């Protein structure tokens, strides 16, 4: 469940900061949805692609944490009647969020490299 995120330091060395699998998936989702990432679309995307249930509570829990880590930024849309007069909150991946994704990808590649040829069956 847990992967590394490596934050840049001034001298180009990396420090390790953990983000969870859920956070990784969430970052990816927001990244892929480009400009249209808000609660409902994010949830739909995750439901469709992970084959797991994501409750609205779970979505916001993860979103809030990512926003706190400054991996996501958000902007409020206009209030809409179909949302009962509430606005949408659009999310965007920040620079450091992008870096975090890159690092996750890198670690994945390193950790999985060479294994793709071998069968992954359980013996």
């Amino acid at each position, binding site marked *: 469940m847990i992967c590394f995120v490596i934050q840049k330091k001034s001298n180009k060395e990396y420090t390790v900061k953990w983000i969870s699998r859920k956070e990784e998936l969430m970052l990816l989702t927001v990244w892929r949805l480009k400009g249209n990432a*808000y*609660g*409902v679309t994010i*949830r739909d995307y995750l439901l469709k692609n992970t084959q797991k*249930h994501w*409750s*609205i*509570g*779970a979505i*916001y*829990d993860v979103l*809030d944490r990512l926003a*706190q880590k400054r991996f996501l930024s958000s902007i409020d849309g206009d*209030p*809409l*009647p*179909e*949302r*009962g*007069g*509430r*606005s*949408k*909150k659009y999310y965007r991946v920040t620079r450091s969020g992008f870096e975090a994704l890159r690092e996750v990808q890198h670690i994945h590649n390193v950790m999985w490299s060479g294994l793709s040829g071998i069968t992954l069956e359980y013996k």
Partner: protein
Amino acid sequence: MLCGPDYQELLLNINKKDKTGNPPKIALWLLNLVVQESDRRFVIGDFFEIYRSIEKREGFRKAYFWLWIEILRSLPDFVSNTIYWRFAMVKNYIKIAVRNILKQKGYSFINIAGLTIGLVCCLLITMWILDELSYDTFHDDSELVFNILVSEGSEGTPNILAPALAEQIPEIEYATRYDWLNTSLVTSGSDTSFERITAVDPSFFDVFTFPFISGDPKTALNDISSIVIAEDVAERFFPDGNAIGQFLTFDNDKEMQVTGVIENVPHNSTLQFDMLVPFEYKVQFHRERDEDYASWGWWSASSYVKVREGCTLETLNDKIHDFLRNGAYKKDRDLWAIPVTDMHAVYSNIKTYIYSFSIVAAIVLFMACINFINLSIARSANRAKETGIRKVVGASRVNLIGQFLGESLFLILIGLLLAFGLLDLLLPIFNEKMGLQLSMNLLLGNSVLPTLIGLSLLTGILAGLYPAFYLSAFQPIAVLKGDFKSGPGGSRLRKSLLVIQFVASVVLIIGTITIFTQLDYIRSKDVGYYKDQVVHVYMEGDQYNNFRNELLRNHNILSVSGSAAGMPYWRWSTSSVDWTGKDPNFDANVAMNMVDFGFTETYGIEILQGRPFDRNIVSDSVSAYLVNEEMVKYMGLETVVGAELTIWDNPGQIIGVMRNFHFRPLTSPIRPLAFVINQEKVGTVAIRIAAGEIPSAMEYIKETWQKMFPAFPISYAFLDEQFDRQYNRIERIGNLASGFALLAIFIACLGLFGLSSFTAQQRTKEIGIRKVLGASMISIVRLLSKEFVIMVIIANLIAWPIGWYLMKEWLNEFAYRIELGFGIFVIAGISALVIAIATVSYQALVAAMTSPVKTLKSE
């Protein structure tokens, strides 16, 4: 947000345009409750959006069903998320609180230290009072046990009173006498030691609860040579264990068999003893006077009774009254009972102290709390900007109130923790200084701790409340623009609270000075006899005359005499007294003592009329009395010398009148006194030693004793030391009062310091301008100190009459006392003033010395 008016309107519009429904209100309410604030709008919006799309596609039922399932599934995440974010804010609050404490170290120190000291003080005093009140409460049914007193104010009662009462008053279930045995030397094999031995009736253990480790309380004291000993005595004499059935020797003479071992007598028992013997033993072997031990005339034992359930103090006193009226004893004698649990307070006259010190403790704690509130309010003015920013960023009023309350409670918590730590540290020192045995256990199982903690929390809430509501009510714009001025709000209140603190401090200083002056007066007062250069040796055996003669051989020993009851004071008195011309209805009671020839010479007691006892006049040793001046007044005769006096049916003549001397503590007036010669009864040998020769003379006395009484260790005491010991209690009280006075002053000064620095801070700009315009430093210091000096002077004016009244009451306890001079008040006032000025002028100096450039540049 959910109930805002524009939102309602929007909802209505939506309903008109769109036929699809809205999620049920209760669901929205629930979401509103659990979702954290910043997400609320969007979460509810998402729910709306999905709900509607499902409703459009699959109908109302399906959407409804989905909504509730989804809410249930989201609930744990929402709740944990909310808690997480709340905690993040609390973390911020704690961070800000700690930063504030560190930023204003002085303030924080004053705040916490004042509170801590106040709490420690209050706790110590409370523990002391609880300990004093716990005396004699450990007996089973202690509310049914009473001590019988006689109006003379002495603990002694007629020795046959207790049995007579038990016989005549059916309400009395058990009665026992309690009397010291003159003997105190106990031997077992080669072990010899002095013990505190008391003679009691066998019913003693029915009246009092002293738990037996072994032996049977019902029968333990039935035999005349039986003895009950305390645990530590048993361990000392019989380290092998089994003490029961073993023998102890009294005075190298009488064999006593141990029939019981009791637990050690607790320190909070008025009755303190190591060993108990049957009262019969005392009657048989330790009579001061042969025939009349069982008469009403001889008093020495205290009397205790235990009444049957349902009998109150009033009924008992009525019954005793009836008992007197029926003529069993003298009709006009006053007898009354006091509960055994009050005994300690009555005997040691400690009630006034308990009252006054509880008031003092309350005042000190009150002062500490007031200071805390005062300083918190003063401090909070600096935080208007922070509050403004918080409001701009979106803090609600509730958040701000919570923050300020929480912060002051946080300080209180630190204060409480420190207080208990300090208490633990100080308790042994306090115990040693005060001669007490207090333990932390006193605080358990009663309402002291909850009360104190509750009070501290209340203080914290009060201290936080003002900034919480006052500051949170400001318009952020006004505060941030700099229009905000912390107004004079509550400054009058703050000042009057400070005045109260100084009143308390000045009263305490007056009290301390008075107590120590009185103590000094008592110590140096001419008591009417020589205190110095006299040593008392406690006699064993009956070789007094030989011992005396032996001692007189040494030229450093100036004079030797003795008496049955020893100086510096005794309680013996008799009502079996008669003289020619005495009103037969007059119930006389005079103090008396049996002395040896030379008593007045040894102690340097002046003879005003007649002559002292003379060894060479035969009749002096049988029928001569020496009385004091008070006795002369008491008898009301014109010529006393040569008058007839009969004590214990022993007629005699008064041969001389002594100048009044103090044979009772100076708290009691001098009573009529008569001396009679009885060399056989001498128990305390008084030896006057030439000045500067004490070491060599003591050497000689010890040697002589060793030679004459090899079986007994010598036991002696110096009269001046014994005399001083009487006033130990007063000295301790004085120490306590001075300690309190110091603390009160300290706490008051903390308050003064805080308040003065606050004023100085508020007036920085004013001072800057004054300096620019050419004000001198002294004038600025004077400007800043003036109001505080006036406050202290007002406090003095209030404190003086209070102090005068209280100290007058206290001095009334003494028959011989100092006059309350004006000087005491002036000294107290000036010292308070000096301390206050010193405190204030520090701040004033700092303010006056700051460069005006610094203070004015921000304008």
